[in-house]
């Protein structure tokens, strides 16, 4: 029994590194220095912050990494008045915040480095720093959720797995970035969301409804906009999904809600979408739905699915 439980845990841990994104576990707003700073000034930062390396930033952009080793080298070669720029390593391997943890794990293994700067894929800006410790902490935190779930399951009261949500709500807010016009990757966000909801042990019918509505919303973003993002909040009462994009916006929201109304071109219809069923489908799957749109600005779709539905005997 125990061996099986351990095995299950291990697989789960392996699964998690394929599902969790770097942005979720990295240290945000890391300490950084400017390239023109003197190496001598590093001493204080290294000591007080108890870190062994940090990113070098110029106008918000990463230009290099400077480490304790660089500092010691300067110390021994009497170069403490030199600028950081002169001694930092500029050949830096970076990760993106929306990459999965597995990418980071591979990089740690391959390079043997202790930390990687994390960038925003779109803007290129530094958003955090990732150490092996960050990964372990992040996975452990998530597994704790799993553990609670396993324990509660024994009491055959699935719905109560969400009791602790209020204690740490952020744990149950998922956010997904949706890339516009990338038809092949479309649906990834909804697919990952579905996986996560499954892992939370929610009733299959609830999961199916949330997954279908999110998938339709994601397809709308991919087909009609340049992309956006989706946040999913899970409270003990309901799952609320918010989808945002930057335009072009919907001219007539009421018309768009009608079954069969569509502005899709033949190209889209031949891809299997655009028959005007997307938004009505979302409405059908959700308990509440709100669609707000401003031409040229963007659209916000919010829908929620109650966890205690009519068909639920809890």
């Amino acid at each position, binding site marked *: 029994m125990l061996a099986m439980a351990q095995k299950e845990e291990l697989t789960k841990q392996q699964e998690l590194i394929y599902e969790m994104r770097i942005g979720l576990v990295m240290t945000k707003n890391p300490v950084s220095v400017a390239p023109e700073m003197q190496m001598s000034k590093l001493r204080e930062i290294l000591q007080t912050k108890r870190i062994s390396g940090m990113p070098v930033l110029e106008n918000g952009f990463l230009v290099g990494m400077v480490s304790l080793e660089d500092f010691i080298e300067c110390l021994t070669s009497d170069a403490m008045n030199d600028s950081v720029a002169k001694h930092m390593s500029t050949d830096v391997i970076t990760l993106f915040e929306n990459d999965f943890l597995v990418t980071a794990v591979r990089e740690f293994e391959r390079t043997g480095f202790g930390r990687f700067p994390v960038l925003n894929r779109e803007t290129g800006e530094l958003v955090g720093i990732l150490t092996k410790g960050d990964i372990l902490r992040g996975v452990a935190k998530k597994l704790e959720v799993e553990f609670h779930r396993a324990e509660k399951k024994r009491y055959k009261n699935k719905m109560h797995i969400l009791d602790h949500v209020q204690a740490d709500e952020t744990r149950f807010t998922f956010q997904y970035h949706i890339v516009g016009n990338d038809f092949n990757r479309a649906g990834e966000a909804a697919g990952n969301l579905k996986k996560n909801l499954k892992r939370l042990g929610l009733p299959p019918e609830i999961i199916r409804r949330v997954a279908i509505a999110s998938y339709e919303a994601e397809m709308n973003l991919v087909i009609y906009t340049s992309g956006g993002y989706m946040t999913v909040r899970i409270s003990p009462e309901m799952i609320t999904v918010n989808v945002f994009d930057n335009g072009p916006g919907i001219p007539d929201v009421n018309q768009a809600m009608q079954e069969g109304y569509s502005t899709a071109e033949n190209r889209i219809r031949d891809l*299997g979408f655009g028959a005007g069923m997307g938004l009505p489908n979302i409405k059908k799957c959700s308990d509440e739905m709100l669609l707000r749109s401003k031409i040229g600005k963007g659209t916000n779709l919010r829908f929620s699915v109650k966890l205690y539905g009519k068909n639920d005997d809890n």
Partner: protein
Amino acid sequence: MQLREIIKILECKILNSFSNLDLEIAHGSGCDQMSDVLAYVKSDALLLTGLTNTQVIRTADIADVKAVCFVRGKTIDSKIIQLSEEMKIPLLSTKLPMFEACGRLYKAGLKGCEENGIG
């Protein structure tokens, strides 16, 4: 109806490594518009489709479709097959067109996806 029977009736090729031919399929659906699949398909259904892109697999995953069969013997991109492996969805291909594929399965007793599950 077991998957193996469907494979026999439609003279299917299995496109991925899925091997549980005892898999029980209770309903059939023939559709090329994914929103309609999402809206109406039952979760223990076989989806017959002429659409051949990755969204078929994503839709099947999202809507709990049990198995997918491409009709008219279309060439299937390796990306699609790879995704079906990840999602663990059995992937079949038949040379028959949609009409005949639906017709044969219906005749063999597979039900559609209408609300009452009849006819």
